[in-house]
């Protein structure tokens, strides 16, 4: 099959599938901490970093990574200090990032900047070195989550008790934030801000509709991510659609289906429970009647 035989498609497959694993893996922790917009917010800071790098003649990868990691550290510090305003802090960084990017792009008169590639990625033009970069990131992210699975689970579920247990919650929070920043900054130029931030949220949101356990949510998120990338790439190839956008739309359709399944399933369970459960009033009347008969 041509779709698997062509060199550029093979690279697109590998990169897409790695992103489909890394993003929900990290995104699960963000979504469960009510920080779903973190990926998007950091994406805009990375955007400013790349635009600033091009303007100053610094490599866009380095400038993007530095800006995103610094932004992530500031967001985490501010979130710790102003706990009740976490989303507000994120919004301020989000707007400031895009504002700086616009200013840098306006100041850049020499060109050398492909806005569309940053925003929407270019899965079909991935090089072998891009693949190595994203594969290395995948290994780091997986090792981080596997080695620190329970402390991270504790942190996300009940941060106060995790602190009482003596866990270094500030260090764990910071490590998670920096890993998110690295994922956004490195994967963004390959697959675009849209795909990175969407893949951190949508597959996890699908999984959350049916998952009962923490590990089930992460594994389900990865499953939905792989399905979205696989189906999205096939559809985009044969229908000649933008791959990033198609993958996200497939993910959104999965979310709608999982939500409908959850709603119909919970109605069915409620109905079955009501049918099987004995009526307390009838049971009481029967018992009273029995007592009367005996007397």
């Amino acid at each position, binding site marked *: 099959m041509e779709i698997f035989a062509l060199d550029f498609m093979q690279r697109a497959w590998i990169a897409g599938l790695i992103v489909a694993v890394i993003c929900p893996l990290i995104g699960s922790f963000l979504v469960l901490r009510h920080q779903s917009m973190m990926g998007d917010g950091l994406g805009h800071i990375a955007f400013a970093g790349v635009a600033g790098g091009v303007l100053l003649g610094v490599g866009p990868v380095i400038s993007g990574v530095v800006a995103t990691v610094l932004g992530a550290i500031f967001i985490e510090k501010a979130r710790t200090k102003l706990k009740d305003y976490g989303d507000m802090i994120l919004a301020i960084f989000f707007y400031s990032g895009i504002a700086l990017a616009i200013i840098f792009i306006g100041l850049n008169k020499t060109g050398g900047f492909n806005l569309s590639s940053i925003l929407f990625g270019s899965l079909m033009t991935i090089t072998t070195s891009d693949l190595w970069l994203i594969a290395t990131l995948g290994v780091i992210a997986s090792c981080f989550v596997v080695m*620190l699975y329970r402390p991270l689970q504790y942190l996300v579920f009940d941060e106060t008790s995790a602190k*009482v247990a*003596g866990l270094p919650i500030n260090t764990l929070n910071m490590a998670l934030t920096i890993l998110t920043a690295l994922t956004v900054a490195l994967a963004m130029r390959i697959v675009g801000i849209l795909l990175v931030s969407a893949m951190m949220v949508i597959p996890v949101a699908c999984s959350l509709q049916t998952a009962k*356990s*923490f590990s089930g949510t992460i594994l389900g998120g990865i499953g939905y991510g792989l399905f979205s990338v696989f189906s999205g790439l096939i559809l985009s190839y044969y229908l000649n659609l933008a791959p990033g956008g198609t993958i996200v739309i497939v993910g959104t359709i999965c979310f709608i289906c999982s939500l409908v399944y959850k709603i119909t399933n919970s109605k069915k369970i409620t109905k079955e429970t009501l049918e099987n459960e004995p009526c307390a009033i009838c049971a009481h009347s029967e018992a009273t009647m029995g007592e009367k008969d005996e007397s």
Partner: protein
Amino acid sequence: MEKIIKIDNLSYNYGEGWILHNLSLEITKGDFLAVIGPNGAGKSTLLRLLANILEPTKGDIRIYDEPLDTFKHWEKIGYVPQNPARNQKDFPIKVREVVELGLVNSGNIFKSLKSKDLLKVNAIINKFYLEDLASKKLGELSGGQQQRVFLARAMVNNPEILLLDEPATGIDTEAKAELYQMLGDLSEQEGKTIIMVSHDLDLAVKYAKNAVCLDHGVCFFGDVKEALNHHHKHGYFYR
């Protein structure tokens, strides 16, 4: 009797006056201490200071003669926060997973659970009558059942001290009595030191040994039955 917690001239403020002011207290090993007092008297603050969640503005807390800021043996402390499942209705976590979290501490951050850890989890699940609920999602449980899960999490590592911040909040009368009975047994039979913020003086009298009444400082500290007498005479525990 060994004094395992020593609080000396402890003060804490949130920026608008003192929540606790010059509070001194010594807690004996094996005590079941009910922390009572009016709303805003600093009961939960005291517990959060003992759990090192808050830092004292002034004063000193020592556990096993070690200052709290250098205390390392957090596996000896079990903590149940106030209304822990409040925002967790949809959180995807099974009862067993919650209990397993009680085994995670600073000493085993990179370690996975071993078979002896799983035995501990199974034992505590049985002890707190959670066998049938172990594979259920936490959010599907009633308030009383959830409190039992959090108590099991606090107890799975067999801690010597239990800090409980209003563990009976939001549960019905029957579940409340069961919970107090369970705590009474832990104190009586296993010699655990329990420090519990409580609004249920009647139940506390039945199961606790001592009571400390707070009203920014200590207004009473002694036998829990005496505390009830004081309450009837002066009525100053609950304003």
